[in-house]
């Protein structure tokens, strides 16, 4: 079985197109290997070329199948694709069953499609940081499109989608509550809405509901992007031209309107904040673990000597002092 990762030459091998080097660096990132940070630092200037497409929506809406069809569509145009498929990690055991590849078998023979399954792992918002790192790795690795597929059922997933240029929200026809499931927080972030399984009863209704809800969303000005609603039947490839067209249309809009630069700045901000969140929460956790300061603070809170907000300020002071050392 494999031993220590051969770190030497990983950077050069990755830039030369060695997918095993990319795969190994992703593993290091996921495991929080300190060596990975040095390589990411060097890689960063090689990234920033890919079109990052976020794909989110409720479980069972067909995200994996859509990702597969979409990748196939981009491949026919000669473009290369990376797919990051995130599935939930059990908070109880830390284990995960990652099954997105089952729906992506059509891509399995194509060496220009790099698929990576990720468990959400989840500790302290680490998912956002690791996902971003993986996106940057695949970007530097030279993939033209990077499709990030997440379960769309919580705040973390919404965060991850913020890192994309184009956010695609997937819904499906159902008993009437289907829009409810995607409404909170996610109507605002979708650039494109897909009603998948559009051959099922109620698809027209779902499309109409979505269009109506988007109508009521105030546009910033006349030239701003109007979210598109696209019907697909991913399982047989139906509507994929429309979806690919909408995604490429959104990219052209970003470029032509000059918003791409602004979007990039927003993405950098989201990335920076997620890294800072992780670092600060780790530092806070370390401060609280400290026997003298941390436990003493908690005892004072329990004894009602200090309120939680003032205690947090004390921890902040500790962190700042630690960072200066």
């Amino acid at each position, binding site marked *: *079985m*494999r031993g220590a990762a051969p770190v030497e030459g990983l950077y050069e091998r990755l830039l030369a197109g060695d997918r095993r080097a990319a795969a190994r660096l992703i593993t290091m990132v996921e495991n929080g290997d300190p060596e990975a940070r040095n390589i990411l630092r060097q890689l960063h200037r090689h990234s920033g070329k890919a079109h990052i497409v976020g794909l989110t929506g409720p479980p069972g809406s067909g995200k994996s199948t859509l990702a597969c069809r979409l990748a196939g569509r981009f491949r026919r145009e000669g473009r290369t694709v990376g797919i990051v498929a995130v599935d939930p990690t059990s908070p109880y055991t830390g284990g995960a069953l990652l099954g997105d590849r089952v729906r992506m078998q059509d891509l399995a023979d194509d060496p220009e499609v790099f698929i990576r399954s990720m468990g959400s792992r989840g500790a302290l918002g680490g998912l956002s940081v690791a996902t971003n790192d993986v996106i940057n790795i695949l970007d530097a690795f030279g993939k033209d499109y990077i499709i990030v597929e997440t379960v769309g059922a919580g705040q973390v997933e919404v965060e991850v989608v913020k890192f994309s240029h184009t956010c695609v929200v997937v819904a499906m026809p159902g008993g009437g509550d289907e829009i409810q499931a995607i409404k909170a927080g996610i109507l605002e972030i979708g650039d494109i809405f897909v009603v998948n399984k559009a051959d099922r009863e109620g698809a027209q209704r779902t499309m109409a509901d979505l269009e109506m809800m988007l109508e009521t969303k105030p546009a910033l000005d006349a030239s701003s992007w109007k979210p598109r609603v696209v019907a697909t039947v991913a399982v047989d490839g139906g509507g994929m031209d429309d979806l690919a067209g909408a995604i490429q249309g959104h990219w052209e809009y970003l470029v032509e309107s000059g918003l791409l630069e602004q979007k990039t700045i927003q993405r950098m901000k989201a990335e920076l904040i997620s890294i800072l969140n992780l670092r600060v929460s780790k530092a806070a956790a370390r401060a609280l673990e400290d026997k003298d300061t941390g436990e003493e603070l908690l005892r004072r809170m329990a004894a009602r000597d200090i309120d939680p907000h003032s205690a947090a300020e004390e921890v902040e002071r500790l962190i700042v002092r630690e960072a200066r050392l």
Partner: protein
Amino acid sequence: MERVIRVFLAKPGLDGHDRGVLIVGQALRDAGMEVIYSGLKQTCETIVEAALQEDVDVLGLSILSGAHMALIPRITELLREQGADDMAVLVGGVIPPDDARSLVEEHGVARVFGPGTRTGDIVDYIVDRVVEDREVG
């Protein structure tokens, strides 16, 4: 640094039976591993490509079709060609004892788990090997 054990479970060849591999997958997941499942009817090439992209510690092959002596040596050979023969290959399914011996002794398979294996034994084997290899590595 927290290293999660990653396992790719695959069904090579024409074999429609996945109950066993899914039970093993759940047991490994419940033991805290990340388990990637390939789905049915995979070629040797697609299995090796996926295992490399996923950078797994362990490749588990489930085969009940009787084609194990044709498919499994091909997979271990492809891994060797890619310089990835440090990935532990485990086999599960209906494998006659002589074939199992040949797979381990001549074809680079780490271990064959036959019918009746307790899932806990597979978990223990993987944990022991990964921990041991990391220490050696």
